[in-house]
């Protein structure tokens, strides 16, 4: 790997492998993610997309390989340490604090980002800076006016937006989004895609998504996974024409 390539990568994985017993969920994956680009990660179910995301965010243990964020090695670091280093993510199954209000959800994320040791000598309401952060993101994700609503009673689409908001508050340089459009109603897909476009401004995004039209449209680069390995990567047009991808997806003969 030459010096220029290293300078230009924000997130890099080297030959990573995640295995459960004899089963290799992810193997031989090496990739350089460049700053500011939006990567679409596609592949059939069971291809290892979410496991790769788990490996990057620290939820899955690597059996082999290394991960670097901004040229700092983060292999083996816990998820919260990676968040601190600038890696945010959303989950396939919505993970929010369901019985708290939307504002409280966001304030918690702001607080987690601001304080390394959580203060215990003042009520949380007295820390104006975290309330301001929360308010800012509340409008960024288009949930103004929903601050006092219980997060669990939001519509599914709004919960997905809240999840992205929670990730945004850690001011991530790299954002991993695991199927942010899954289960989102047709009428609001446009809004959701708009939000993804907006949050990808100035940061690297890795997006797992099954809606091919959306992925092809908004990604700068597409990565195709199959059986735990990266099958192909490149611009949308190249990928669409790639015979290996066509075989994998459509079962066409090469």
């Amino acid at each position, binding site marked *: 790997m030459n010096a220029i390539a290293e300078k230009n990568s924000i997130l890099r994985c080297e030959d990573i492998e995640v295995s*459960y*017993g004899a089963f290799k969920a992810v193997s031989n994956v090496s990739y350089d993610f460049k700053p500011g680009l939006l990567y679409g990660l596609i592949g059939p179910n069971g291809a290892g997309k979410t496991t790769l995301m*788990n490996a990057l965010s620290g*939820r*899955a*243990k690597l059996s082999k390989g290394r991960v670097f964020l901004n040229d700092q090695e983060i292999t083996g670091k816990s998820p919260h340490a990676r968040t601190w280093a600038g890696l945010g993510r959303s989950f396939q199954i919505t993970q929010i604090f369901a019985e708290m209000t939307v504002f409280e959800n966001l304030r918690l994320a702001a607080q987690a980002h601001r304080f390394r040791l959580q203060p215990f000598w003042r009520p949380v309401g007295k820390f104006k800076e975290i309330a301001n952060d929360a308010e800012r993101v509340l409008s960024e994700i288009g949930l103004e006016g929903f601050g006092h609503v219980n997060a669990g009673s939001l519509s599914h689409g709004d919960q997905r937006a809240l999840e992205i908001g929670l990730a945004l508050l850690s001011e991530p340089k790299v954002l991993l989004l695991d199927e942010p459009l899954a289960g989102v109603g047709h009428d609001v897909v446009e809004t959701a895609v708009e939000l993804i476009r907006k949050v990808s401004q100035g940061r690297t995004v890795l997006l797992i998504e099954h809606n091919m039209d959306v992925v092809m449209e908004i990604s700068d680069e597409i990565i195709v996974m199959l059986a735990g390995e990266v099958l192909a990567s490149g611009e949308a047009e190249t990928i669409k024409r790639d015979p290996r991808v066509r075989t994998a997806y459509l079962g066409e003969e090469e």
Partner: protein
Amino acid sequence: MSTIVIGLSMGMLLFLLAAGLTLIFGMLRVINFAHGSLYMLGAYLAFQMVSVTGSFWAGLVAAPIIAAIIGALMERIALRPVYDRDHVYQLLLTFGFILVLDEAVRIIWGLEYKQMYPPELFAGAIEMFGSSVPSYRLFIIGFGAAVSAALFFMLDRSRYGMIIRAASGDPEMVRTLGINVSLVRTGVFSFGAGLAALGGAVAGPLFPIELGMGFNIIIDSFIVVIIGGLGNIRGAVMAALLIGMTRALGYSYAPSWVDFLTFILLIGTLILRPEGLFSRKGRTA
């Protein structure tokens, strides 16, 4: 020689308790804190039957049946309403059972120690390899082995075993197949309670029957169940024999360290391999 016999008989006794605990956990995801109390209840019930009928065997049969009925009631009345809550509530409920069962025993039988005698058939001792071994201990080993063989046969071969295994894996699926899962749960809990009481009845002639006997053995049973792997009944056999032998050896060579050893085994297992020493599955993320 007698150390081995004591170890094996302890192991078999522990297995009777651990089998119930681990079956209940596998099926209901409940760690039954009150299992020791059911064991104690079994001993008292057997004692009562023996003093009424004069027959040890009557006690051995009646105690588990009565305890199984009590277990079924416990599951129906108390546990069923809280299945959809956090598992912690179920644990707390079984903790409440301890208080009630212990009190019930205190009210019925009082505080003084009770003594039970082995049946005449196994009252003596047998010479084995130059040492004298109480034949009742040998009976326990044989009885325990028979019960575990029956248990394995039932779980592996019978329709009930298949339902139980399927229902502990995926209750929703089994329910859609038309099986009454809630009945299976009651059955398993009741069966586990019966096994605990059977253990108590068998242990009756070995130890003084007293209120504290439940707690003394429950810790060991937890150790067995956890070392064997929660819900893993084969692991429980191995672990029960391991703990039984450890105890027996400990008593003869370093009596004051026995409790330490077993606790440290438990703590070590919980920390290093919470899925159990005898579990084949690797730890999943």
